[in-house]
């Protein structure tokens, strides 16, 4: 599992690739926590190269979105692969996270709102 990061304006984009299982979840949690603590609450998570997400992965995202929402921020997801989207759908997490097909759309959605 690999994480990379970049920013466009006031939006920070982190890309997670590979498998987001229980072990990888810790690393992603640390990354998100440090971004949020530093005040970056407009986040896009690019999942184009994510093949699998476990319940621990969902939990980390849930924790992060709760945190940013307290600061009037949001976490939006981009480019979910079908198998990953299915996991979000089944758990009902589609109600929580706005999802976009393209990274640019996700980034732009922050300026519109």
């Amino acid at each position, binding site marked *: 599992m690999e994480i990379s990061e970049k920013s466009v304006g006031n939006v920070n984009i982190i890309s997670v690739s590979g498998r987001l299982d229980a072990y990888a979840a810790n690393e992603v949690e640390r990354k998100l926590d440090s971004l949020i603590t530093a005040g970056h609450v407009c986040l896009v998570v690019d999942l184009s190269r994510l093949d699998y997400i476990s319940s*621990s992965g969902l*939990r980390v995202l849930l924790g992060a979105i709760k945190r940013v929402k307290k600061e009037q921020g949001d976490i939006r997801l981009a480019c979910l692969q079908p198998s990953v989207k299915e996991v979000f759908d089944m758990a009902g*997490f589609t109600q929580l996270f706005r999802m976009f097909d393209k990274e640019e759309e996700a980034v732009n959605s922050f300026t519109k709102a």
Partner: protein
Amino acid sequence: MEVTIGDLGLDLVEKICVVVLFAYIVTRTRYFAQVLDRQFDVRNRVFLILVFGGFSIYGTYSGVELPSGAIANIRDLGPMIAGLVGGPIVGLGAGLVGGIHRYFVGGFTAVPCALATVIAGLAGGVIYKWRKGEFVGIPGAVLFAFLMESFHMGLALLIARPFSAALEVVKLVSLPMILANMIGIAIFALVLTNLIKERRTATERDKYRRELERRTYEMEIAGGIQQSFLPESPPRIEGVELAALNVPAKEVGGDFYDFIPVSQDKWGLVIADVSGKGVPAALFMALSRTLVRANTVGNLTAAQAIRRANDLIVEDDRVNMFVTLFYSVLDPAGRTLTYVNAGHNPPFMLRRDGRGIALLEAKGIALGVMPDIGLEEREISLREGDMVVLYTDGVTEAINNKEQQFGKERLISIAEKNCNLPASELVKRIQQEITEFSQGQPQFDDLTLMILKVA
């Protein structure tokens, strides 16, 4: 016979080997171990005095012959070490043994040499006291040897007469003597620090092993307690067969199932999966299972009951854990199943008479995520021969050596092929198939199955 550098070199190597051997053997005796543990008694003190005193005597006889004709020896080595390691009494004792022997060997340096040997032992003991029993270490020991032997040479100049003869001897042997004792003590110190490190590692390892045993034992107890939260056996219900299975990935897990007497003639069937696994999931499992049970007993509406349970779970949840849950109310007389699905893998129903497969889906979200959730309630009718299979993703996501998943399709086809088996047999059969499929891969996630067959 002229002593060549080659002879000298060989002689030195031989002496070094003796020191190494002596050091290795003595440091691994029981008495030495006791002394290292500061467990002194008469026996181990006498043992060390004799052994190091004896080594000192060996030093007197085993001097290295130098090209100049003089002899450099390591008599002081034994008492020095005895003192450093065993304290003043042992050091003094060894020094006396070696020193008194040297005195009786005679020669014009008898007095200063004997005296130096005794003082060497005592000085080692003083250092021991100063270091409060901790070994002074390799650099400290080497410095000690350097100072001690220099002192020994000084003593010879001070006491031995005639002075001119003493000066001659000291000029010839002081450098070799000082060096030989420094090297000798360095070797000994090396062997000793090795031993001390070994013992420390062994002590730590034993401590960790005991701690591990204790934790394993506690986890086994925890596993037993958790199993007691699950129904001991499915209830006997007129007109239906029920069977269930739960296998945690570790000693404790996050999956659960339940059979809840909702009313006189209706039963709640629950299957659920807490995010994560191990102890954190197990703790959350205990919370969720209890809140669901408390809110569904006596309560007939599936959606209301689970919504209330969710509000309570969310209140208690500060760690962002969530649980996916499928809850259904079985009416055996009316032959209906009313259900809600809070983010869980939809169970499937195999219908007899080739009416196909139905997925028990319903709109919802996992519990523990947010309060006041919406849950769609649906009803399905049960006909004779129908079978409902409930499962958690530990079943469908079990992987084999090629990283392929067991999958929903495989589960469905096994259920179809074996639909004539009684529910309890079918559950075991599916478990067998999963085990075979996994090809020895360790179980990655908690595994839970429940089967309902309509007679």
